[in-house]
């Protein structure tokens, strides 16, 4: 769009020698200067920009528009103002599913962050093995569907090995996915299993940036591993940890696949997470307008959380200097 019209005609074929003098030119803006790359740039940026406008920007605007309409896919969208939002606020199922989602996110992120941090620190302090890192990542290669099905089987009340072991220990079998209390924690932990390795590797990459001399110096001073973790690792990892948290929380809020293959929202709406409710409203009841309004609500919640987290964790600042 704006590129084609604003890109200047190329005056010089290439301005190599002049450009070479400033080594950091890629970092700087180019306003006020035109180096004659405009035409080529619009060609190179073309496909990506097309995709961006058609499948990201336009759907975003359209989603907001649809949230103010009654729309069932068959007839044109009909403007209804704030009706969908009024309905949403008065919809107990919406609030239930929001609550269920929040519960899921808390368990999922809480356990996952601690487990990933432990894994990352162990990988850093214990070994350099790339194979171990590879092993830790393997569940990430599975789809949520596969992970859901495998754990559905392992946790099966009658035949699952998990419950076999539990009953072998003399404890009552637990209907992990069929019980209202257990279902959400179980799904949260299944997704921890799938994602913890990836999160651990992100944190591990952050740990690699901490200069090893710090640990050496601390060790000379007689600091224990535990103390080094709290005095060196945690403060220096904090900015990375903050970004990982923001990323994983946003991802976690969008839980759908695992719910869809294990409990389908049940029992009794106990796992009816927001995204599942949105999906049901759109494709089960063809209320695309209402589903869009709930998507907008989810977007607002996610934006608020991102801003809040960023502020609270001072993610923008680093202690590494």
């Amino acid at each position, binding site marked *: 769009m704006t*590129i084609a019209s604003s*890109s200047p005609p190329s005056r010089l074929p*290439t301005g*190599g020698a002049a450009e070479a003098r400033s080594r950091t*030119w890629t970092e700087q803006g180019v*306003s006020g200067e*035109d180096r004659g*790359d*405009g035409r*080529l*740039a619009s060609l*190179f*940026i073309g*496909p990506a920009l097309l*995709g*961006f406008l058609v*499948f*990201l920007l336009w*759907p*975003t605007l359209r*989603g907001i528009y*649809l949230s103010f309409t009654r729309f069932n*896919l068959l007839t044109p969208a009909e403007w209804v103002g704030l009706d969908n939002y009024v309905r949403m606020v008065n919809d107990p199922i919406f609030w239930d599913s929001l609550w269920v989602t929040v519960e899921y996110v808390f368990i999922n992120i809480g356990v996952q962050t601690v487990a990933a941090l432990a*894994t990352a620190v162990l990988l850093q*302090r*214990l070994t*350099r093995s*790339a194979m171990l*890192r*590879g092993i*830790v*990542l393997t*569940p990430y*290669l599975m*789809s*949520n*569907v*596969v992970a859901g*099905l495998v754990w559905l*089987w*392992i946790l*099966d009340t009658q*035949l699952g090995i998990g419950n076999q072991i539990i009953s072998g220990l003399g404890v009552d079998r637990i209907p992990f996915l069929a019980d209202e209390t257990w279902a959400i924690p179980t799904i949260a932990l299944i997704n921890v299993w799938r994602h913890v*390795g990836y999160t651990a*590797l992100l944190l591990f990459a*952050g740990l*690699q940036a901490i200069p*090893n001399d710090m640990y050496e110096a601390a*060790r000379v001073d007689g600091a224990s591993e535990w103390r080094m973790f709290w005095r060196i690792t945690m403060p220096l990892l904090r900015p*990375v940890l903050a970004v990982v948290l923001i990323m994983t929380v*946003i991802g976690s*809020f969008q839980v759908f696949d695992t719910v*869809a*293959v294990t409990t389908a929202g049940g029992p009794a709406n106990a796992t009816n997470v927001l995204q599942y409710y949105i*999906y049901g409203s759109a494709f089960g009841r063809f209320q695309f307008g209402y*589903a*869009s309004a709930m998507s907008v609500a*989810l977007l607002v919640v*996610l934006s608020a959380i991102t801003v809040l987290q960023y502020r609270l964790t001072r993610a923008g600042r*680093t202690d590494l200097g």
Partner: protein
Amino acid sequence: MTTVTTTPPTTLRPVRRRFPFGRAAAWTVMGLIVLITLLPFYWILRTALSTNAGLNADPANPLPAGLTTSGFERALGLQSAEEAVAQGGAGGGLDFWRYLLNSVLVSTLITGCQIFFSAMAAYAFSRLRWRGRDKVFGLFLAGMMVPAIFTLLPNFVLIKQLHLIDTLLGIALPTMFMTPFAVFFLRQFFMNIPKEVEEAALLDGAGKVKIFFRVVLPMASTPIITLGVLTYITSWNDYFWPLMVSYSDSSRVLTVALAVFRAQTPQTGVDWSGLMAATLIAALPMLVLFACFARRIVSSIGFTGIK
């Protein structure tokens, strides 16, 4: 912080001999993590090689109960309906080769196009100078903030209006051209290529297009391969979007097929043996792909431009 592309040569070799107990405990925890990570994979294999009757009779056996490949035969549709039902299957028609092919086609199309177009855009954002560049890049960055779920419904409406529902192209289209992340990720690497390299090529008379293909792309092969494999895995594993778009075998991918397989529960109970065999078939290509590139990927997973 800056991009972590390769593992810096860690000189970290714990030399302490003072706390062998602590180290032993740490290794125990590590072992436990590995065990929890890998055990489900073994359990998939063990179940897939069992008979359903064997699973019922001997659920806690760590070895395959009634060793057989009939689960795989059922998953791949090699058994007649009567045979499948007799062994605890649903007997419904499943065309696994079809779904496998669909998954390969969709993932290859998405990965190939997305990485290529994103690389072109990243090149324009990092090494070409044009007016409005930073503003357009800012727009792309803002696009990263929009969660996928938000664009799914409107994109479905759009794909429907384009009459691409139930086609492979309809599944691929929204992520075929770019993701803001891919552009962002590659731009970081392109920016770090020394100016002198490009300079030398310019002096040799190469144009910018040639520089992109002959200099920049080869130099960035590691991040491109990493991003490519991760994109492939992501699109292979995607469930929600294909579920929305595909309705019939013609465009059904493995993830959706698996959920359908699970839903076709026979009267007697779930066909666990067949289901786990199908699960293994669906997951195996990614395990193989990962095994080929593991070292590279593992050492290049990191951050791009995270402050």
